[in-house]
């Protein structure tokens, strides 16, 4: 089933919900979906297009909004679902119901970008240290890190 057939059948299934559908390279299909119908789209992909394998979720900070890319891989192609969330109200549904393995990446988004994932089964802190100050989200573009001056042991720092 080549990329173009998949793009055609995706257009037929999703219809208006597919805001954007591009195929920039061989075996790479990008699909833009509103956050409301994210979960149905993911369920459709998992059942009809055999995309049960979620590689990862990439978070992007594009100034006024956050963008999330869900990378799915099937034996024939890879499909990347993109949703955007306004910076003012960063909430979007969790897909852990559909793909149990997704809880990993959603917790990272929560911690790195300060977004809220509704319905996440386990919302604890992921890999920032225990004593990390709350409210600091390192992956945001506006977050700058001032580097502490390393002290050279033995005096002449």
């Amino acid at each position, binding site marked *: 089933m080549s990329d173009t057939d998949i793009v055609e059948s995706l257009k037929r299934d999703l219809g208006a919900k597919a805001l954007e559908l591009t195929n920039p390279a061989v075996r790479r299909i990008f699909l833009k979906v509103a956050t409301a119908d994210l979960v149905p789209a993911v369920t459709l992909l998992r059942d009809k297009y055999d995309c049960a394998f979620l590689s990862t979720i990439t978070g992007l900070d594009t100034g006024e909004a956050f963008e999330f890319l869900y990378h799915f891989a099937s034996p024939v192609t890879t499909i990347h679902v993109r949703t955007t969330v306004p910076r003012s109200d960063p909430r979007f549904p969790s897909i852990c119901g559909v793909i149990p393995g997704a809880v990993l990446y959603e917790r990272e988004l929560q911690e790195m970008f300060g977004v809220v994932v509704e319905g996440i089964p386990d919302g604890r802190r992921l890999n*920032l*240290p225990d004593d990390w100050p709350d409210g600091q989200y*390192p992956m945001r573009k506006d977050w700058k*890190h001032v*580097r502490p001056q*390393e*002290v050279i*042991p033995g005096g002449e720092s």
Partner: protein
Amino acid sequence: MLNKLTRWSRIKSPWILHLNSGACNACDIEIVAALTPRFDVERFGVLLKATPRHADVIVASGPVTRQMRERIIRIYEQTPNPKFVIAVGACAMSGCVYRGAYNVMGGLDQVIPVNMYVPGCPARPDAIVDGVVKLLGKL
């Protein structure tokens, strides 16, 4: 005479404890490779020990991440005296490519006193063995 004997025994049987403070495990694999037939540190009496209680020399690798900082201090305190610390690899010396990252303290000497630095990314097993032997020579 007694402290000549203890000095000789300390030089001849340094037991090492391997400590990874957030490294990319290239140096750790080279440390473990130093135990294998080709480099075989057991010739110098070096044994890889599991608990800080049994160890004399802490061989640490990796730029200290913020999360590991407190654990490293505790493990350093749990090791009985006389103890020494060898920082293996560029990360343990100065943080290597991760210098300046928000979560990295940049080098082991920001946390615990270090006696011997072994350069290299990763430090070669023979460089590590050379470091251990030189540290003992300094004793």
